[in-house]
């Protein structure tokens, strides 16, 4: 049937090597005894110890997590509504513009988004800080959530919604009691995606943040401009580790859910 040829195997092996080698090297050298990132001088965890004492990084990490949490929650709320509007509300006035505003942010260069959002905050006389970064993150994250929800709704059986209405459930309660529980996995992955993108954002945060709201990517960036140090490797390793644990957990939960449904 479908040949899984030597070409395919080598493409996958090479591809994954390309993808993972830099990260593995990064992690490796976070445990390097010396300051150099190219010469292995022995195993050491001293950079992690120094990291723990770096207040700047710790503050930035806390700010970043706060912003990521709030922005992803609001973005999930807005994006879910937007996704349902796009797939279930049919035609309405201004739909083309709405659709444009949902898809454009996903490809828009971040410098444009960052600049335009900042200038707007200034025009509206909103002080830059955690609030402005959060607002900016919500704006682009909600579009990704919307697309995820739209994709989920294409395989959603409409007659279930109609059945709920038919049995006396108001449209709003139908959403809460029927639609939402059924699409919950998509909503959760939307939240996770928003959280990651917010955690990771450098450009937009740089434009829209203010004093006291330096995010972790901004801090790392300023450190990187000064040169490669194992401390950065250490921070990176921790982040990579957390994300890996998160993604593996999520996929295991997803697998278990699928198994449960299949067994039933």
């Amino acid at each position, binding site marked *: 049937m479908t040949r899984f040829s030597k070409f395919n195997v080598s493409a996958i092996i090479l591809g994954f090597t390309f993808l993972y080698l830099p990260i593995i090297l990064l992690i490796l050298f976070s445990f390097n005894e010396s300051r150099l990132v190219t010469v292995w001088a022995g195993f050491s965890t001293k950079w992690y110890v120094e990291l723990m004492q770096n207040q700047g990084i710790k503050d930035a990490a806390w700010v970043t997590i706060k912003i990521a949490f709030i922005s992803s929650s609001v973005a999930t709320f807005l994006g879910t509504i937007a996704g349902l509007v796009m797939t279930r509300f049919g035609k309405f006035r201004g739909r083309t513009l709405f659709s444009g505003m949902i898809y454009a942010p996903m490809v828009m260069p971040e410098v444009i988004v960052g600049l335009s959002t900042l200038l707007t905050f200034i025009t509206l006389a909103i002080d830059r800080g955690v609030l402005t970064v959060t607002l900016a993150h919500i704006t682009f994250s909600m579009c990704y959530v919307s697309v995820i929800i739209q994709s989920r709704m294409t395989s959603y059986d409409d007659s*279930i919604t*109609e059945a*709920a209405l038919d049995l006396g459930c108001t449209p709003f309660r139908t959403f809460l009691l029927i639609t939402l529980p059924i699409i919950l996995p998509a909503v959760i992955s939307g939240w996770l995606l928003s959280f990651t993108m917010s955690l990771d954002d450098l450009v937009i945060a740089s434009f829209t943040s203010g004093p006291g709201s330096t995010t972790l990517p901004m801090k790392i960036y300023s450190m990187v401009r000064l040169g490669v140090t194992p401390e950065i490797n250490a921070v990176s390793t921790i982040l990579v580790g957390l994300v890996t644990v998160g993604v593996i957990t999520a996929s295991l939960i997803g697998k278990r859910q699928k198994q449960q449904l299949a067994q039933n």
Partner: protein
Amino acid sequence: MTETNTTEPWLDSSQKPYIQIENVTKKFGDFTAIDNLSLDIYKNEFFSLLGPSGCGKTTLLRMLAGFERFTEGRVLVDGEDISEIPPHLRPINMMFQSYALFPHLTVEKNIAFGLKQDKLPDNIINQRVEEMLQLVELTDFAKRKPGQLSGGQSQRVALARSLAKQPKLLLLDEPLGALDKRLREQTQFELMDIQEKLEVTFVIVTHDQEEAMTVSSRIGVMDSGKLIQVATPTQIYEAPINREVADFIGDVNIFKGIYKGQDAKGTQLLSEDSKSIIYATQKVDVPVGNRIWFALRPEKLEITRKLPEVDCNILKGKIEDIGYGGSFSTYHVKLENGRQLTAIRANRERTAEHHLTWGDEVYLHWSPDSAVVLLS
């Protein structure tokens, strides 16, 4: 004091229709799905909407449920105009073709869902759910989830759920479509029993004419957004209103020809096929020379080897094809002019004495009161 006719309420002028569909039109842009349709349905009827795909029957059903708005017209249920009432406030429930069971709720909770929306007290809800489960014989399945049910079981849960609120009207959208033949036949009779027992008015949409004939009190044959004929199954079958209805339900032989007037034997048709006069008892009132048709069901067409001793309606032909159906056989007989007619005969003898085979020269005849005269 005339007795109220309870078995055929549509014939009784003293009875008011339970559902009155008045001059309803539905347009999707330029396309007219339902064209100025009016229909009266009486209480406790098991009414079928029958027609080919795209005739508008499902659209009409969805409009009754409230999922499509009327472009024009209105619908009254028990005297109340429900045209502007949204679906969740109508005293109507629907059983969906895909069953639409809530996958995250148990069978019990599915059935209880509608009752919960009415904010009924818990003990009443539980009692009603029990009753419904017993009605569809799924008491042991109460705690299961839809993913754990078979097709037939899912169908019964969907039915129980839609009846739980004791609606004034139950709409069923191709309810037996997904079941295999044996299960379908069994369920047809179960549906009829349930309908009688609960005294609910059913309106069912189906494309399966046999199903419609089996379960219905009356059938509404639809095409292109219009109702062609509304009558009992017998009337639809034996007295179709035009060639379209005749052709749609079951097999039929249609004779085309010119009306030559009446005589002692009945209405005369100069048949195009046999170039002779054939007769039907049914009288007509059209000018002589008009084009008319006779419709003759295959089981009314007698097929014999010897010349039958009757005085009219005899055609000669040759057996082209035989289809053996176990309890009956279908014969395709080719007339001299090349036209093919279909005759069905019950296989009453185990060993065929009147054994007919391919190529046999045979006579076809029918009694004049077996044919229906059609004017269109």
